[in-house]
């Protein structure tokens, strides 16, 4: 297993790659080019630098038909996520103008993973600061086992899920209030953690954010996300899971 961690987009991206038939040197080179791609996407989408295309678009200095192709694709994904979430994910309703932050990191992870898939490696996982996309099977097992971090204990897990596509989790326990309800502007929520499992990590990422800000309507929204499945932890300690969530059976040794 080739393992590499790269600091980008304000967080850490972890790569776990099983090269299979792909020569190790070649797989390592592809990971390096995936990291380069992540830094390129960061340069386009960052709202922390005034000169980035995203900042210029938000400031009205760049027209929609003049933005980079990556931004056009991200906007299409944002529209898809807004519809699926029934408006609870809405980058166009954020203060300060269009803000796709809730989707970009998940999308960047899938872009990086796609480079590894095209290179022909046997199996790979990319974890972008807690948002994960996988393909193939890890050694000796059939599915990737992903622990969902416990919202109130950084060293513990709330549960373990088995996935063959992607999972994203949102919550405010790591960086404080930063999510905004697009319908009334609220920033405090009684949903501590929301995870979404599905094929496309960009959509998972956006839906996880939507489920947190939907707050008391989250559990109901979680059951109507089409091909996406969801798992929530509320501040009162209750947990909610849609029917397609696959919990791994835990064992105590």
């Amino acid at each position, binding site marked *: *297993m080739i*393992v590499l*961690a790269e*600091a980008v987009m*304000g*967080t*850490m991206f*972890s790569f*776990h790659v099983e090269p299979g038939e792909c020569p190790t040197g070649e797989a390592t080179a592809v990971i390096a080019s995936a990291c380069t791609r992540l830094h390129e996407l960061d340069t386009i989408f960052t709202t922390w630098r005034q000169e980035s295309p995203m900042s210029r678009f938000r400031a009205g200095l760049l027209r929609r038909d003049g933005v980079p192709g990556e931004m056009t694709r991200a906007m299409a994904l944002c529209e898809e996520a807004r519809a699926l979430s029934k408006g609870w994910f809405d980058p166009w309703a954020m203060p300060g103008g269009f803000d796709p932050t809730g989707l970009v990191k998940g999308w960047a992870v899938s872009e990086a993973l796609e480079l590894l898939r095209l290179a022909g490696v046997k199996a790979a*996982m990319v*974890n972008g*600061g*807690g*948002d*994960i996309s*996988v393909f193939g099977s*890890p050694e000796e097992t059939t599915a*990737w*086992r*992903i*622990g*969902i*971090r*416990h*919202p*109130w*204990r*950084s*060293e*513990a*897990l*709330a*549960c*373990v899920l088995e996935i063959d596509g992607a*999972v994203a*989790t*949102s*919550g*405010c*326990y*790591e*960086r404080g209030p930063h999510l905004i309800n697009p319908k009334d502007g609220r920033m405090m929520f009684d949903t501590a*953690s929301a995870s979404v499992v599905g094929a496309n990590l960009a959509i998972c990422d956006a839906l996880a954010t939507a489920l947190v800000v939907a707050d008391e309507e989250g*559990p109901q929204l979680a059951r109507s996300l089409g091909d996406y499945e969801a798992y929530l932890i509320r*501040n*009162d*300690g*209750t*947990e*909610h*899971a*849609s*029917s397609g*969530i696959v*919990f791994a*059976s*835990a*064992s*105590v*040794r």
Partner: protein
Amino acid sequence: MRRVGTVAASIAGFAGIVALHAGGAPSLPGATAPPAPASSASGTTKPGTTTPGATKVPTTTAVPVTGTAVGTREQYGYGVLAVKVTEQSGHITDVTVASLQTAEQYSQNLAQQVIPMLRSEVLSVQSDRINAISGATYTSEAYAASIQSALDALAAK
């Protein structure tokens, strides 16, 4: 946000806390369970202890697993609690909160510390079989102390 304090992180420890605080318990309207003796919390960990009609499970979605039982509602000092326990081959494999009513905000804060510990104590011991951790985005500084960085080190061996 670290709120792990003096509370023991085990089911036995939880029973001790129940005993510690039961004396000062506010009485809750609608609470039918008697004040919990120290043994009651561990009593709920055995499948088959479900009391018919003791509680419904209003908000927790049923998870498709076998050997699950919901314990009776217990007054635990700051509210009323029922836990759901899953057992396989004589081992507890999962503990979740089936229902929880707390009297006030303070109780809720306390419950946030205590109740998830029941479950996390079970799940934290098997991290070597986990490939990765999904969670709210951490900073690159926080990564160094995260379980993910430990899993990365483990996988790189």
